[in-house]
Structure formats: structure tokens, C-alpha cells
């Protein structure tokens, strides 16, 4: 009887840590149980050209679990959860490595030749750097930012076209491998400096409301771009047509995909945009008014409403995309659409989603998270050191690219958009290093610079590929 009593009290006192690890484990196993039969399919686990994809999917589940565990361990200051998060991250990393090797062996060349393979290596490098940072620097909070980024990259890869293509003649060069490896390593390094900069700002006492304001600004940026580029006058969302047989976009001209309007799908995106705008305005009103308490309630409420509509918009998008094919009168034919055609849209939506959620958690558990972080000075110093390590890598990447271009096209510099943006990134971080080393910039300004630099890196990586034309068409 007494024994039973103690058991119930223990049960009743199940800590947040135990609950989270229970939920994460059950969630991961459920996801695995649902997906594994699908993954095995008719082909079997290891057959097919894209066997690595299956490992990658399991790695994604591990990364998602690790993200939740890292997040809760930081927010509730649970050291034992942190250990479990590391196990999830390491397990995911191993599967990720297997996925890379599998793709390498089935394609016969290092997986560095198209955007899918680059994201594969980029996300891998992020997790590797995170593991190294944890091991060398004892920085438990870093994973709470880097692992969600890695998970986001793997989500994006679920929809990116992943066929293995033989290497076109221009890419058959050792310099391809050097150039792309350096690029991915430096981009991953800058990602770590971005994560550290966020941690610095939290530790430095930037108010959680400011983070919520930034999240709203990010949501406005993402949904604004979507509304401006994809929603037409009749509130239909334009998605590129997809040919399931060829597993490719339907093109009507060079670099001109055929667009299919999905009726009334534009509305949810416009509503999210309006709500995010409102939330940002309320946020600013709260911070600049004389009675912030009066506004706080509205600001937070509108932020929550924005997150809810974002989820709803995503769900509607998924439903609509799967309901195709859609009939186009001008071609008198029906066309399928896939999210694979708009990786930029999907990545943006998922980024806004995760950022908003992270913002809420931060707002909720701000003091606890801030107390868990290492000192400001050491974070500030680490931001500089990661930039100082990544900047030479970026430089060598540009040099290797120039040398390769000179061997292939007879010109080491052609002012092609990808080159220009790599140089803009270089100039930005060169400015950062001068500010830091010569002017002695420390603290917030330095952290803001690291965040700006990361934004430019991401535009160089994805924005140039999807938004600007150029020589780097294959990447």
C-alpha cells in the first residue's frame, strides 16, 4: 500500500523533462511506424537510386526530436534532457552521413552538383559544427537554434527534385568539389555565428517583445514576397505545373515555367500578411507607447492569431496541392502541381512557422532561457571566432571558383549574379572584421552584423538560385 502511494506521488511529480522526452519518443516512434512501411514500399529498403532518401527521412525525424528536446532543455533548464537531445542529434547525424554516402555511391560522384546535394551537405555541416561546438565549447543552447535550421533544410529536401543526373561536362572537375565543399563549410560556419548572435542578443537582454516584432517582420517578408510574386488579381495562388512522368516542371520557354492558378488559395496568404502587419504595428505601439501594458495583450494576441492562420494556410496549401490535377482552359488540359516546384515558397512558409513558434517559446520562458546561456563576453567572442574561421573559407571558395571558371570558360570573373553575391557576402564580413579588429566593435552591433551577414549568405545560397538568372543555373 505504502509502496503504491509513493509510486503515485512519483508519478504525479513527473517533471517537465520526463514528459517532454516521453512525448518526443512516442512522437518519433509513431512517425517512424507510419512512415517506414511507406519508405520500404514495393522496392525494399535499400533498392532504388535514391535509397539515401529513406535514411534522410529517418534523420529528419531524429533532428525534429532533437530540436524539441534542445528547445525544452534550454527553456526549462533540464540538463538530462540535453543529454537525450545529443543522442537524437548524433543518431540523426549518423543516418545523415549514411544518406550522403548512399547518394555518393549510387551517383558515382561526390554529392556536390545540384541544389539538393548542396543542401544535403550544408545541413550535414551545420550538425557537425554543432556537435564540435558542444564538445569543445560546452554550449548546450546552440542546438536549440542550429538543429531546427538543419531540420528545416531536411524538410526542404523532401520536396526538392532529387533525381541523380550525370555530370554535365563543365562540372567534371576536381575544382567543383573543392569549390562547393568550401562554400558549404563557410555557409554552415556563418549559420553557427548567426545562432550565436541570437543567443547573444537574448543574453544581452533584448526584450522578448522585440524578438516577436522581428518574427512578425520575417513573416511579413516571407508572405509579402509570396503575395507579390504568386498571388494574382483573382486571389488565386500561382504554382508551377508539374509533369509526373518526367518528374520535372512544365516549361513554356527558357526559364519560364507554366503557372497553374489555384483558386481562392491566395486569401489565406493575404490574411496572414495583414495579420502579421497588424501584429508588427501593435508590437511597435507597445514598445513606443507610454502605457506598454495596455498594448501587450493585443500584441501577443495578434501574434498568436498570425501563427494560427499560418498553420491554417499551410494546411490548405497541402490539401489543395494534393487535390490536382487542375484544368487550364488555354491548354485544354489538366496539370498537376507539386510543392517541389516552389521550394522557395515552401522554405519561406516553414521558416516563418518555426521562427514564430520559437519566438513564442522565447517570450514565455525568457528569463529561464537567458539564465541558462553562457556569459555575454564568451558568446561575443565566439561570434567573432566563427566568423574568423568561416571568412577565409569563403575567400578560398571564391578563389577556387575563379580558378575553375578560368579553366572552363577562360574568364576568372564574369560578374555573374552568384559571383556578385558571393563578393557582397565577402565585403560584408570584411567590413565586420575591420569593425571588430580595428574599431573594436563588440556586443550588440557585432551580433546584428552577424545576423545581417547570415541573411546575405542565405540570399546568395537560395535567393540567387531561384530569383536571379545566371551561369550558376545548375546550383
Amino acid at each position, binding site marked *: 500500500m505504502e509502496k503504491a502511494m509513493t509510486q503515485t506521488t512519483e508519478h504525479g511529480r513527473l517533471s517537465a523533462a520526463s514528459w517532454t522526452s516521453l512525448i518526443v519518443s512516442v512522437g518519433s516512434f509513431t512517425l517512424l511506424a507510419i512512415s517506414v512501411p511507406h519508405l520500404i514500399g514495393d522496392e525494399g529498403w535499400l533498392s532504388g537510386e535514391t535509397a539515401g532518401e529513406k535514411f534522410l527521412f529517418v534523420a529528419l525525424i531524429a533532428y525534429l526530436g532533437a530540436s524539441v528536446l534542445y528547445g525544452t532543455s534550454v527553456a526549462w533548464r533540464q540538463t538530462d534532457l540535453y543529454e537525450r537531445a545529443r543522442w537524437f542529434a548524433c543518431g540523426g547525424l549518423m543516418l545523415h552521413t549514411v544518406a550522403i554516402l548512399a547518394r555518393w555511391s549510387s551517383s558515382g560522384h561526390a554529392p556536390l552538383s545540384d541544389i539538393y546535394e548542396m543542401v544535403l551537405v550544408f545541413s550535414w555541416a551545420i550538425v557537425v559544427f554543432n556537435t564540435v561546438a558542444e564538445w569543445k565549447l560546452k554550449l548546450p543552447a546552440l542546438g536549440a537554434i542550429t538543429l531546427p535550421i538543419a531540420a528545416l533544410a531536411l524538410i526542404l529536401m523532401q520536396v526538392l527534385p532529387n533525381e541523380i*543526373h*550525370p555530370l*554535365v*561536362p*563543365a562540372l*567534371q*572537375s576536381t575544382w567543383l568539389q573543392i569549390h562547393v565543399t568550401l562554400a558549404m563549410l563557410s555557409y554552415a560556419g556563418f549559420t553557427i555565428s548567426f545562432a550565436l548572435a541570437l543567443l547573444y542578443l537574448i543574453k544581452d537582454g533584448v526584450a522578448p517583445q522585440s524578438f516577436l516584432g522581428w518574427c512578425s517582420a520575417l513573416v511579413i517578408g516571407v508572405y509579402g514576397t509570396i503575395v507579390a510574386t504568386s498571388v494574382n488579381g483573382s486571389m488565386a495562388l500561382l504554382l508551377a505545373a508539374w509533369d509526373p512522368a518526367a518528374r520535372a516542371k512544365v516549361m513554356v520557354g527558357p526559364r519560364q515555367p507554366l503557372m497553374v492558378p489555384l483558386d481562392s488559395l491566395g486569401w489565406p496568404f493575404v490574411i496572414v500578411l495583414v495579420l502579421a502587419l497588424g501584429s508588427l504595428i501593435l508590437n511597435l505601439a507597445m514598445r513606443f507607447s507610454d502605457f506598454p501594458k495596455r498594448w501587450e495583450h493585443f500584441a501577443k494576441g495578434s501574434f498568436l492569431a498570425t501563427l494560427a492562420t499560418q498553420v491554417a494556410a499551410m494546411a490548405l496549401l497541402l490539401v489543395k496541392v494534393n487535390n490536382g490535377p487542375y484544368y487550364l482552359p488555354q491548354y485544354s488540359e489538366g496539370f498537376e502541381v507539386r510543392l517541389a516546384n516552389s521550394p522557395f515558397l515552401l522554405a519561406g512558409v516553414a521558416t516563418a512557422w518555426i521562427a514564430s513558434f520559437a519566438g513564442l517559446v522565447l517570450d514565455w520562458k525568457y528569463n529561464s532561457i537567458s539564465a541558462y546561456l553562457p556569459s555575454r563576453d*564568451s558568446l561575443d*567572442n565566439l561570434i567573432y*571566432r566563427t566568423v*574568423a*574561421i568561416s*571568412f*577565409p573559407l569563403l*575567400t*578560398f571558395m571564391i*578563389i577556387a571558383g*575563379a*580558378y575553375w571558371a*578560368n*579553366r*572552363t*570558360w*577562360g*574568364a*576568372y*570573373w564574369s*560578374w*555573374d*549574379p552568384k559571383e*556578385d*553575391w558571393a*563578393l*557582397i557576402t565577402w*565585403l*560584408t564580413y*570584411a*567590413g565586420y*572584421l*575591420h*569593425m571588430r*579588429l*580595428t*574599431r573594436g566593435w563588440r556586443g550588440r552591433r557585432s551580433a546584428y552584423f552577424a545576423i545581417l551577414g547570415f541573411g546575405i549568405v542565405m540570399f546568395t545560397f537560395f535567393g*540567387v538560385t531561384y530569383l*536571379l*538568372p*545566371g551561369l550558376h543555373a545548375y546550383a
Partner: protein
Amino acid sequence: MHKTEYYMTNCHSGLDKFLQFFGSLRFGLWLLGLLSTAMILGTFILQRPMAQEGQIEQIYAPQVVSLLNALGLFDVFHTWWFILLLGFLGANITLASIERFPQVWRLYARPHFLADAAFIRALPFQREIPLGPHTPQKALGLATIQLVRSGCPPRRETLLKGALYVEKHRLVRLAPYIVHSSLLIIFAGAMIDSKRGYKGFVSLRAGTSTDVIEPLTTPGANRRLDFSLRCDATGMDAYSDGSPRQYWSQLAVLENGRVVAQKRIYVNDPLTYKGVRFFQASYTPSGMPRKLVMEGSWTENGVEHRQVLTLVPGQPVPLGDQGAAVALIDFLPDFVLQGNEISNRSMEPRNPAIHLQVERPGIGVSNAWIMPRSTEFTPPNDTGVSFRMVSVEMDVSTGLQVAHEPGQWLIWIGCLLLTAGLMMALYLSHIRIWGIVSENRKGQPVLLLGGQPSKYRESFEQRFHELSGAVESALATVSAAKKENQQAA
């Protein structure tokens, strides 16, 4: 006299001020910002060198076009103001380096070997180590042995003067100047290339030669080489799915009619002759044969005739001795039949269909189709001659990009220096440790160690802590052993 002197110095300071501003970090950062902004504009606005004919006028409104044209924003990277900004950046780097270099050079060339106690006590990291029973010389000797063991040998000359001096990576002090001068070298290389170098294009059909290079950009003149280039063959290797695996051209360089160089070039592997490089850029099969060799056989008055015909499009060849002629009318290199439609799949002679016409004086024209690789059916032939294909050489042309970049060696030297300089500047730290025998506050003799890094204080702090700890325990262990000895005695 007084007045002139005053005037002179004033004038001097005006120039000085200007130079100071021009070489200042603030101006440099402004330039970085302006260059970045210009480049961002250059990637978002369609650039003329990348646009197709008339594309700009189609996309932008006429007023916008004239405005952007006037600002040079349709060719940002070649406008005078962009070049000027780059020139300013070069000047900024040069002036900044000149201004700061002497100070750093003094630090580099004449390091401060001998320190006194006041100097060491002002250093960011220091430690007092008790000498124990050792004499100062003995203690310095023991410390030296320990430092050598830890991989930080002190300088010998200073040791003779009774002081420890450990130093690593002094060259790091010069690294920023290495980086900045490497950028200037790269600028110089790019300048030489833009003045003295050229880019062009050569299109050659297999079997022909030329010494003229066409310009890459529309307004530009042809350029004549002092040698000529011949293309002996060109082709494409394909993967099993038909996508291109490699393009190649067999090239020969001729001077005064003599072959002086030969190379089969590939994408990524050009031919270089007299500083001019030829790159495989494109490959265009015309789909027609350059030389088609057929064998015709027919019976005339009971006698069997056989004749080998070398056919070229547009040039009829005599057949037999009765004045007849054969002409190549059409050639499909890779035909496929879909119902009654005949169509062509590729430009490679995988499954050719040859249309020949025989014209006999007084009799008229008759036609023959020959499909040498197809066994499915017999193609129509009313010429009375049966043809057999002996060989076919396809008419293909290769597109070669030509580049002459006399400044590229400067560029690569600059890049190597940049690589080395950046690694030194950002991965290494100039560390110095001084040590002398001095007294602590109580007046007891101590070994005073002090150190200073040029950067990365945290890792140096750890290093310094380990080193000084090792020295301390070295002095302590030996002194403990001595004490034991004394007690035993």
C-alpha cells in the same frame, strides 16, 4: 619668413588631411558599402552583356530605360563610376597600409626582448613563481628546460642576459599588410587584363582553319592572330541516356604552314599557345555529311559496273561514262518512322536515311533512298543502281572561346598571398612571454612571468596558465627533492 612657413605647413596639413581621409577606415567602409550597393543593383537590374537583343526595351518602360542608361545601371560593372570606386578602394588600401606600416614594421623588426618588472606587471597575464632554494641562474635554467619541453623554447641571446623571452608567429603582425597588398596585386592583374588582354570567339568546321578571332561583345573588331588554328575533328561523348558527357576538339596550331602544336581539348582543359587560350565552348552538328562515300553498282548491257562515289551536298558527281550524275539531295542522320511520317531524332549518324538523285541525259531524273542501318524494309529506289554506304563524315563545327589574359599570373599570385595572409591573420596569434627574476611584495625572490597575445585572449590565457603552471611545478619538484636530500643528510 614666418608667414611663409605657416602657409607651407597649412598647405601641407590640407593635403595631409585629405590623404588621411582617403586612407581612413571610415572611407574604406563607405567604399565597401557603396560597392555592395552597386553590385546589388547590378544583379537586380538586367545587365546588357547578359541580356538578349531588345530584351531590356521589352521589360522596362522607355523613360526608365533612358534614366538607367544615363546612370550606367544597365552595365554597372563596366561604368566609369564603378571602376572609379574600385580605384578609390585600391587607393584607400594603399594609403592605409603606408600610414600604418612603419609602426608595425618597427614592432616586427625590432622586438622588445628585454623586459623589466614594471613592464611585465603591466601585461594582461602574469604569474609570480617562487624560486625555492634555487639561485636565479638555476631557476632560469630549470624554467628554460621546462619551456623547451612544452614546445616554447626561449630565445638564447636573451637568456644570456638573464631574461626569458618566448615568441611565436611574429609574422602574424605583417599578415594584414600581406592581405591588403595581395588585393592590390589582384587589382593590378585585373587592370593589365582589361588593358592588354582580350576575349573572343572562333567557330570552326571540322577540317578548316582560321587566324581570325571574332569579338564576344557586339561592338568590337575582329582580331588577327600571328598563327592559325585548325580543327581536325570535333565531337561529343554521351552518357548511356544520350545526355552529353564531354565535348572535345582535336586542334592544331600552324605557323608558316607547319604544325607547331597539337592538342585534343575538352571542356575544362584548354589549349594554350603563345599566351592565347582556346576553350571548348560549343559544339554544333549541322546534321549533314561533310563527305559521304557510297558505292554504286549496276548492270549495263549485261556488264556489271561498280563505282565509288564521294558525295558532298550540292555537288553532283558523274556516274558511269554515259554522262549521268548523282547528287546528294537529303540526309537524315538519325531517322525514325512514325506511321507515314519520317522524322529525325538526333544529329549523330546513328540511323541515316540518304536521298540520292540520278540524272541521266535524255531520260530524266530518278530517286533512291538508302537506309544502311535499317533492316526493317526496303526503301524505294527507281534509279536502277544499287547503292551501299561506305563511310560518312559528318559536318560539325566547334565553338571555341578565346582568351588572352596576360595579367592572370598576378591574379593567382595575389590569390595565393591572400590565402596565406588570411590564414595567418585569422587563424594564428602572435604570442610573447617574458620572464625575469624579481621580487614579490614581501621582498622574496620570484620568477616573474608575463605574456601577451595579439588576439584570442581566452586560448592564450589557458596556454599561459598551463605553461606557467608547468614551470612552477618544475621549480617546486626539484626544490622538494632537494629539501628531502637535505633532511636525509
